[in-house]
């Protein structure tokens, strides 16, 4: 559950690798964001309307779930379609399909922190 002050932007990170969730959590918090992380793809669907994040970082290949299906679903829902989604993958060739599924941006793993933050800032201005 995201708890945030009014000025803080909330970011949800979905990746099935706990280490990646860990560092992204720390990094984004250091940058002043409210961060929630989860390895579960269906986390979002259980969220209350008012708890929706301002930005989602989403892995393409999740265990048991294809991130592209999630982004397709999000972009198909009136309530969530405005939320920017940045996808990332260790398969550099996944970019095209990720964008086709509705991702607003893409990062190839491993990505540089500066690149990530630049993109995040750009969406949350």
């Amino acid at each position: 559950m995201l708890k945030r002050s009014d000025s803080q932007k909330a970011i949800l990170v979905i990746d099935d690798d706990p280490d990646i969730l860990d560092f992204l959590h720390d990094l984004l918090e250091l940058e002043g964001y409210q961060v929630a992380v989860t390895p579960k793809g269906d986390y979002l669907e259980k969220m209350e309307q008012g708890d929706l994040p301002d930005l989602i970082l989403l892995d393409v290949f999740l265990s048991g779930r294809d991130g592209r299906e999630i982004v397709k679903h999000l972009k198909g829902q009136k309530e969530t379609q405005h939320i920017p989604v940045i996808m990332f993958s260790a398969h550099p060739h996944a970019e095209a399909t990720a964008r086709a599924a509705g991702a607003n941006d893409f990062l190839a793993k491993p990505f540089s922190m500066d690149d990530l933050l630049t993109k995040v800032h750009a969406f949350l201005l």
Partner: protein
Amino acid sequence: MTIPPNRKSTPQQGDVPAHTHIVQFSEDDTFLMTTVGKFLSDGLRVGEVCIVVATPAHRASLEQRLTVEGLDLTAAQTDGFFMVLDARETLARLLVQEQLEPARFFEVIGHLIERAGQGQRPVRIFGEMVALLWAEGKRTSALRLEELWNELGQRQAFSLFCTYPIQDMADQALEAEFTQLCQQHSHILPSESYTHLSEQERLRAFTLLQQKALALEVEIACRHAVQERLLMLAAIVESTDDAVLSKNLAGTITSWNRAAEHIYGYTAQEIIGQPVTLLFPPDRAGEFEQIMARIRQGERVEHHETRRMRKDGTILTVSVTISPVKNEAGEIIGASTIARDVTNQRLVEAKSQQLFASNLVGIFVADVEGTLLETNQALLDLLGYTRADELIGPLQPDTPLASLLRDLIFQASQSSGTVEPQETVLQQKHGKDVPVLVAMTCIEHTSTCIGFVLNISERKALEQRKDAFIGMASHELKTPLTSLKGFLGVLRRLLASQENEKILHALTRMDAQIDKLTTLINDLLDISRMQTGQLVYREERVEVDDLVQEMVESMQETTQTHHLQVEGQTQAAVFGDQDRLGQVLMNLLNNAIKYSPQADTVLIHLASDETQVHLRVQDFGVGIAPEHHDKVFERFYQVIDPEERTYPGLGIGLAISHDIVMRHGGRLWVESQKGEGSTFHLRFPLLPQKNRPGAEIQKEGTMGSKPC
């Protein structure tokens, strides 16, 4: 044979005028002696000088005849009217080194005649030296001696009588010399059977002779033709590779050619007279009677394939044709056999049949209309059929195999009868698709095509597994790298406030190492995909100057040792994958820095013309010896020089770059000398280019896929 007319009127025998040169052709010695005896006695009786140059036998015979005629030879010799010389001894005096010497002749013979005639007395000479020469086969010398006699006759008056046995003139080849010989003489005396006839009889005999001569000429021509034919037939029989032999009805071999010697191992000498059953292996012994029964009926046995035994016991497979041989009366007297050794041929056939039947590769034989004639078990298995007759025959035009066959035959007709191996998919009987490799070759003189079909589904599956593995491996490797890089980022931010430069520097170095590791993993993934033709290329407009600028700036950021200097500009765009082209540039820049540790500059030169852009990346480093220039673009190739320091790397960067450039229809090459730096050249065709050679860029697909 033509007898030239005499140059002077025919003399009456026994009435020979002086200065004449008479030749007598004689059939036997007695007749000759009679004629010569008369020639001499006539002379002696009228007080002429007679010289005899003859063989001892002829001298004795003549002396006896003249004595019988009542001539006193002793007195004649004493008075110088009768002189006798040995023909061989005299001849020897005329020769110098086996050759007739004209000067000697004139000296010896001229002097002899001079002495004998004493200026006034007519001289008659019977000479046998020419006959000796002729008999010894020295016909040119004989003719030459005749000439010398004639020359002497121009200077001195004498009558010369010479003689040749007519039998020595019988050879047709001597016609020209005989004619020449006759022309040397003023008088020709024909042989005795002609001489004894009356005038009327002579005319008849002459006409008869002419007729006989003509008939003989025709006969000779006929015989020559027959002989030539026989020689030719004999030559054919001798030179053929088939054994040709004959046998009588009892089976005794009567002739045996060279091929028979070769095939069966017996010489003609050994086998002629032996029973032909010698050649029959024990299990074929009964065959002889069966064959001969048919021969006795006048029947031919044609192309009968059987076994025969060589002298050394080897069993041969032969194809024999046996025909009855008849005599002039039409009775069958034996048989001729022509046998061909087909042992090797049958062996080859059996081998190729085996090769066909038990091959692991599917093989079919089809005619040029696309009708399947034969298939082997491997092909049936591959296509899921159990019996060949389900496939053999005209194919249904809409089946996948039929359309494949049609396509292959068409391709073969376009390329001198051979279709290079190509991958395709064939549908099995029950509808399942099988990836296959097919090749076909057409045999022109039989109007058939032989096709080879290899099931490559396992290879395909393996390729897919390999690809999946590499994909997975790279994913698995990159995931911890991502975390590592991420935690480094966090650490850097946490420590940034402490302003500890050393710590921050170490973190930056670690981050750079992670980037290098990432590049290596990406390269491995690329090279694997490149091999299977699965590298994905985007197609987009790429501004060359911008791309170069971006890559150079990015590289300069992490490079403290070298200044990357860009010269010129292209003001042009190419068509391709921006990231891939960037990858090529990064690879070239990386190499330029890596291999010029002592230098501080890398030059990047840009230029373009109407059709292409030209990029050069020049370093001032260790250089590459010319023998490595092509190889550096091969996978896993690294220049190894024992005297030099080694440079780390996988040896795949340039291979990937080369592949990317080729797929973009460009060229990548190097100019370098060892120790003098290297310049890598890149050329790309300019936009707009719809049909660029060597590159077909598909949207988000694989470019110019080339399986390997």
